[in-house]
């Protein structure tokens, strides 16, 4: 089998490693290098202009960057937690339904069919202050007689973005948690009922601990590809107005392609990647802990 004298596990992993190296690792090395240069897209010769850690120092000293950084962490925290809670609620409700579950489960995953670009446009129009769906509805119902500037007001704009983000991504949580609910052994739940638990107590003390691994899996997945929210935010507000919704990704995207300052953008990008990896590893740790808590393999 192993004419190359490679251990079988390596043979099996090789395709994955090669593809990831080619598509992710090599480009990353390239962009890592360029983060130490004054690289500007429109002037290829600048790729060779080594400026050391200038870009990193510039980012570190840029208030706008740190605001975006903080805002990104805030948005991630709020969005991930809310998605988790809503996904949990949704999954529990769906799991309790006896007929038409197939349809409900599909409907539950509906937002996952929407490309992030489309979601961006969709919510930009829905939250339009003048002719948007939300304001039209509120005004028709007589709930308000002003045009609420959903995408402009400091708090509302962040809210709108989070809403769009939650709308697209709660499904991921719901589907994973639903799978978890189906996987829970019924005995301990029934034991809890007999032990005197109210439905809420048996959920809190028995079901939830069982669900934790699934929740952390969902968290890990989401923190892996949460940067996809870039498409949504870019179209909805592009970080504006007055940088009120500026996130790391919109800042990096604009710096990289519109301003064409690739070197600087890559330096900021690396800081963003570290943030993302931190979240991911954090949730992986939590996942392992939750699993061993349940005594389920490593």
């Amino acid at each position, binding site marked *: 089998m192993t004419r190359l004298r490679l251990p079988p596990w390596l043979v099996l992993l090789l395709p994955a490693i090669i593809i990831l190296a080619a598509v992710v690792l090599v480009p990353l090395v390239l962009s890592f290098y360029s983060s130490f240069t004054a690289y500007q*897209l*429109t*002037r*290829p010769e600048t*790729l060779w202009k080594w400026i050391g850690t200038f870009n990193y120092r510039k980012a570190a000293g840029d208030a706008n960057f740190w605001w975006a950084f903080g805002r990104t962490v805030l948005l991630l925290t709020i969005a991930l937690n809310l998605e988790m809670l809503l996904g949990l609620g949704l999954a529990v409700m769906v799991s309790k339904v006896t007929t038409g579950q197939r349809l409900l489960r599909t409907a539950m995953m509906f937002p996952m069919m929407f490309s992030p670009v489309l979601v961006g446009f969709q919510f*930009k129009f829905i939250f*339009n*202050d*003048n*002719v948007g769906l939300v*304001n039209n509805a509120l*005004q028709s119902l007589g709930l308000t*007689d*002003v*045009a*609420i*500037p*959903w*995408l*402009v*007001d400091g708090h509302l*704009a962040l809210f709108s973005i989070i809403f769009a983000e939650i709308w697209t991504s709660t499904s991921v949580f719901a589907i994973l948690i639903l799978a978890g609910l189906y996987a829970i052994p019924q005995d301990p739940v029934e034991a809890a009922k007999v032990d005197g638990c109210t439905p809420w107590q048996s959920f809190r003390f028995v079901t939830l601990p069982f669900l934790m691994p699934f929740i952390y899996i969902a968290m890990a997945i989401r923190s892996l590809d949460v940067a996809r929210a870039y498409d949504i935010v870019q179209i909805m*507000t*592009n970080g*504006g*107005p*007055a*940088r009120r919704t500026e996130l790391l990704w919109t800042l990096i995207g*604009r710096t990289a*392609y*519109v*301003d*064409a*300052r*690739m070197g600087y953008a890559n330096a900021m990008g690396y800081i963003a990647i570290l943030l993302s990896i931190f979240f991911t590893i954090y949730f992986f740790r939590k996942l392992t802990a939750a699993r061993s808590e349940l005594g389920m393999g490593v």
Partner: protein
Amino acid sequence: MKRLAGVSVAALMLGLSGTAFAEGEFAGVTLEAKLIGGQQYEALYARIPEWEKMTGATVKIISQKNHFELDKEFKSDLAASTTNWCVGSNHSSFASQYPSLYTDLTPLIPADQVAEYVPANIAAATLDGKLVMLPRAQFDVSALYYQKSLYTDPAKAEAFKAKFGYDLAVPETWDQLRDQAEFFASPPNFYGTQYAGKDEAIVGRFYELVVANGGKLFNDDFSPAFNSDAGKQSLQWFVDLYKAGAVPPGTTNYLWDDLGNGFASGTIGLNLDWPGWAGFFNDPAASKVAGNVGVAPAPKGSAGVRTGWSGFHGFSVTENCANKEAAAALVLFLTNEESQILESSAGPLPSRTKVWEHVVDAAKSDPYKTEVLAAFQETGKTAFAVPATPYWIEATNLIYPELQAAILGDKTVDEALQAASDAVDGLMRENGVY
């Protein structure tokens, strides 16, 4: 992309002396082209097979994307040094960003041909003495769309006169426009006007207002000049409208599509906008104000100058193109009289003097179209392009958040302009502009 060996340059130059080409003159040549995609722009490309048949060349469209994606792609191409394709769509506002990408067309296009384009357009297409693009019939400048019914109500006219002391008529100055916008506004159902509120769009609007108010955005060395009285007066205009509720509260997040949809929904009184919308606004299937749309030349600022931030699409030939002659011939063909007539028949404005005449003539039986053309032609007379610096777009990204901050009240006008000016100054210095 093999260069055809048997064709001499002299023969080519001869062949280019008119818009008619010698039969099969570029036989065997393949040109790769990156052309802007989208419904408004693609009708023209139907003419390409005609040119292919005429010259024997083959055109391969290797990229067809919208404007902003194309911009990203050109920059990526520069970075990857994959610039040996030949013909690319270009835009006057973006052209200055790719100084090394495109070749000078002057030696490739006879001067008498160049003279047939609108001189102001040719001037804007010339950067550092290089003619980098030939304009197609996609000339853009903004004129004032308005709802005609606003000016036919005697009660309104009377109330207006009582309040402001002059007659209510389609505004000729930006101050009048502000008065009227505030007068007409009745939020949340109706707003006097609106403006693009982000990205390059608001900076462009600010820029033309600064010019109309007698100021400048940049000094000749491209150091910022907008932190001036004219600049403050201009920004104050945006702030006043926002504070008075005369514009939709979301206006700082609007881009062109939001503006167009807003005016078409009938909730906006006065709207400075592009010619591309003219047909849309008067189409009953798309617009509620169809039949009620008036178009006037852009108003004037305090210096008596009309606003006239303008731009146009065109085609360029790359420096690394293996067969520039053929490429230039294609560019010329796509912007020749017939092409421009074809393209402008759908609404966009031409950039050839003769075609303007033709278009105006053709619209005689259609009063709306005539009105539109008159307004844009009048505005176009004093139109001006964006500052010719490669850092224009980057500068707009530094300026617009500050403008927004002032409009939303996060900063005062003075603070915002100071911050924007400092940021742009830093940018220019970092890039060694001065």
